[in-house]
């Protein structure tokens, strides 16, 4: 069993209080960083660790930190993105709920590394219990002298605030988050300028996911070199995966990146296989916005190599036969699930959450939703699939923020891999509303390398 870095003490009773957290070695990284290291050293350690952003895009965190502009006399900010609202992802809520001090410890060290005097945790509005937990934890940390003026006698001041959002998915996009934090309508900004140059209140800002910030703690405690030994290739460290769908044991699991997906899905340590003795049909590997894959392509890459839970291996095959690790929202579908209905459900979500700022996403998501709704309910036509692919292509890449891409990918990939099921919804419309298409050949082993256009 691999060592856990983030969730090691998750089962200790009272770990959400400062005393218990301290007794388990908590806030050691703050002491180490503030007393023995310079901010540049911390950034260097994070760079060495190869930590990649855990929010979805997988951009190297150390690199992001080193891009931060440092003009004289201008405040810098660190903002923690806890607006976790991707369907299928619930790892950040779990982390904040059970072990809030880990996030706060990470925030202190990261803010120190970036030279931020004020930092914010932007939490999604629906997570009110977690907001209360964080506020309580911050008060505890402040009393113990880990926050406020002159932390641990190092002369470093930090104020940490929790800001509840309004519960909009779009505010998880970093520039929309900053707009919302400033008190404006949560519309994504047009980049450039990037937040590293002009972010919150026009000052240089770094926006990081909860898990990325929490991962800074073990990196500082054990050193970047040590952290980078875990994992495979450029995917280093551990990752929280929120497993959901038709698995026997859904929940949040901490895995070493590079774990074979077959082991993750079927071993008793993790998901424990598909519930009710059914077979696997499809998997969404990283939250609703990544391409969906049929079982055979998910377990093996197109070259018949076993797939691993890592940024590179999941992306093997590009968008044609691959997917993405995304934010780690792992959703498994068994043979009784309807892919058309699922795609419609995802698209309905994106239609609801589109901010309405730029036209392709505003109009296109609604259009796709209506076509999919028609297909699902047996009123579709065979040309609808081509229409959907075309509309998703018109949205993809033409929008201000990645929400347009996120709305387009699930539709395009579902039609690419499950076209026969979509067609069956048209040709056997009356049957499609009463029963599901079933497994077809989606779990068959891949026979030969297909020629891909």
């Amino acid at each position, binding site marked *: 069993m691999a060592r856990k870095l983030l969730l090691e003490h998750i089962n200790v009773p009272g770990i959400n209080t400062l005393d218990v957290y301290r007794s388990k070695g908590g806030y050691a990284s703050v002491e180490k960083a503030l007393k023995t290291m310079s901010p540049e050293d911390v950034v260097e350690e994070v760079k060495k660790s190869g930590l990649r952003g855990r929010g979805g895009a997988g951009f190297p965190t150390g690199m992001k930190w080193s891009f931060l502009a440092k003009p004289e006399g201008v405040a810098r900010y660190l903002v923690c993105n806890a607006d976790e609202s991707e369907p299928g992802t619930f790892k950040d809520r779990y982390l904040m709920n059970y072990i809030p001090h880990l996030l706060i410890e990470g925030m202190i060290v990261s803010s120190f590394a970036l030279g931020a005097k004020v930092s914010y945790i932007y939490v999604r509005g629906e997570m009110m219990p977690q907001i209360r937990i964080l506020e309580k934890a911050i008060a505890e940390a402040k009393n113990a002298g880990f926050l406020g003026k002159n932390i641990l006698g190092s002369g470093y001041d930090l104020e940490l605030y929790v800001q509840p959002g309004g519960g*909009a998915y*779009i505010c998880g996009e970093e520039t929309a988050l900053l707009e919302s934090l400033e008190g404006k*309508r949560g519309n994504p900004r*047009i980049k450039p300028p990037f937040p590293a140059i002009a972010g919150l209140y026009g000052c240089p800002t770094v926006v990081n996911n909860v898990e990325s910030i929490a991962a800074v703690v073990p990196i500082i405690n054990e050193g970047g070199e040590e952290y980078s030994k875990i994992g495979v290739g450029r995917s280093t460290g551990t990752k929280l995966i929120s497993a959901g769908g038709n698995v026997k044991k859904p929940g949040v699991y901490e895995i070493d990146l590079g774990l074979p997906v077959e082991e993750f899905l079927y071993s008793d340590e993790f998901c424990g296989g598909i519930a009710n003795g059914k077979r696997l049909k499809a998997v969404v590997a990283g939250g609703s916005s990544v391409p969906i894959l049929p079982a055979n392509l998910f377990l093996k890459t197109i070259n018949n190599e076993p797939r691993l839970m890592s940024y590179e291996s999941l992306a093997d095959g590009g968008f044609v036969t691959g997917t993405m690790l995304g934010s780690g929202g792992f959703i498994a579908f068994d043979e009784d699930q309807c892919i058309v209905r699922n795609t419609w459900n995802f698209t309905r979500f994106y*239609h*609801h*959450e*589109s*901010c*309405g*700022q*730029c*036209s*392709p996403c*505003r*109009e*296109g*998501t*609604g*259009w796709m939703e*209506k076509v999919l709704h028609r297909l699902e309910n047996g009123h579709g036509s065979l040309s609808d699939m081509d*229409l959907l692919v*075309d*509309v998703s*292509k*018109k949205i993809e*890449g*033409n*929008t*201000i923020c990645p929400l347009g891409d996120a709305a387009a990918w699930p539709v395009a990939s579902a039609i690419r891999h499950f076209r026969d099921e979509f067609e069956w919804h048209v040709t056997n419309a009356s049957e499609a509303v009463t029963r599901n298409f079933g497994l077809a050949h989606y779990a068959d082993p891949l026979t030969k390398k297909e020629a891909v256009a």
Partner: protein
Amino acid sequence: MSVKVKIDGIEVEVEPGTSILNAARQIGGDIVPPAMCYYSKLKDSGGKCRTCLVKVSKGSEKDPRPMPKLVASCRTAVMDGMEVQNITSPEVLEARKGIVEMLLINHPLDCPICDQAGECDLQNLAFDHGAVKTRYEFDRRTFEKIDIGDKIQLHMTRCILCYRCVFVADQITDHRIHGILNRGDHSEISTYIQHAVDNDFSGNVIDVCPVGALTDKTFRFKNRVWFTKPVQAHRDCDKCCGKVTLWYKGEEVLRVTARKDQYGEVEEFICNTCRFDKKKTSDWVIEGPSKVSHKSVISSNHYEFKPLPVVKTNPLLREANEEQFERDTRL
């Protein structure tokens, strides 16, 4: 200090920091990307409608990599040595066609009863860049008409959410009381509780609206714009510049608008007194008829008729055209 940028193979020197769109406007002609939300007089406008997408095939002299995605030309600054493809890139034309289709799927296409018809940016855009038919087969979103004050009517059903009127309210008038409510395709321009917009410059939202969503209640259903004659006029106004266009039908002034340039942008904003209250010829000093583009339906019946120019204002095209003309006449 100026930077060189090549747009569709035509080189132009512009100030650093100019957007690609404005660089293209300096060249003029067919290579100017259409813009529905960008408004040069309004700060921070643009980037939303995505009709002005262009392909940057060479980033700059220093970093010649092409940009991975199509970029909004109204919000992307030029770099030295940048090469941009607009009408020479099939990818751009395809994307633009898609965006026009998207803009039209929730637009009611009630042009026959819309006051904006004939001077509507969306009509022009759809005519120039759109597909013949829409593939959208569902109901369009609809809203109730709202009166914002006694002179302006908001018909949200026609709105394409360009945010121009929000920027006007933000930047021209003292305090903003209208903005966007809700999100996605059900978001709407509103004053929230039908608050009257009653400051002196609020009428400008009518001029900046690219479609017929914000209309002048003193002109609604009075006449089609192509039956009226635009005439330049001015008066001494203590609030604004007083330079306007009067729209005549016979002897009567039907409406007053600000003067617009060739891209449909007003030259200077005018006040509500000039716009709504001064509708007699005696209030104004007439300068003469407005120049109307031969392409516009407004020019259909009147004014000097010029044969369609074979060349645009672009000197390079003109030269090429003269050569072609010579060759043709020689044979």
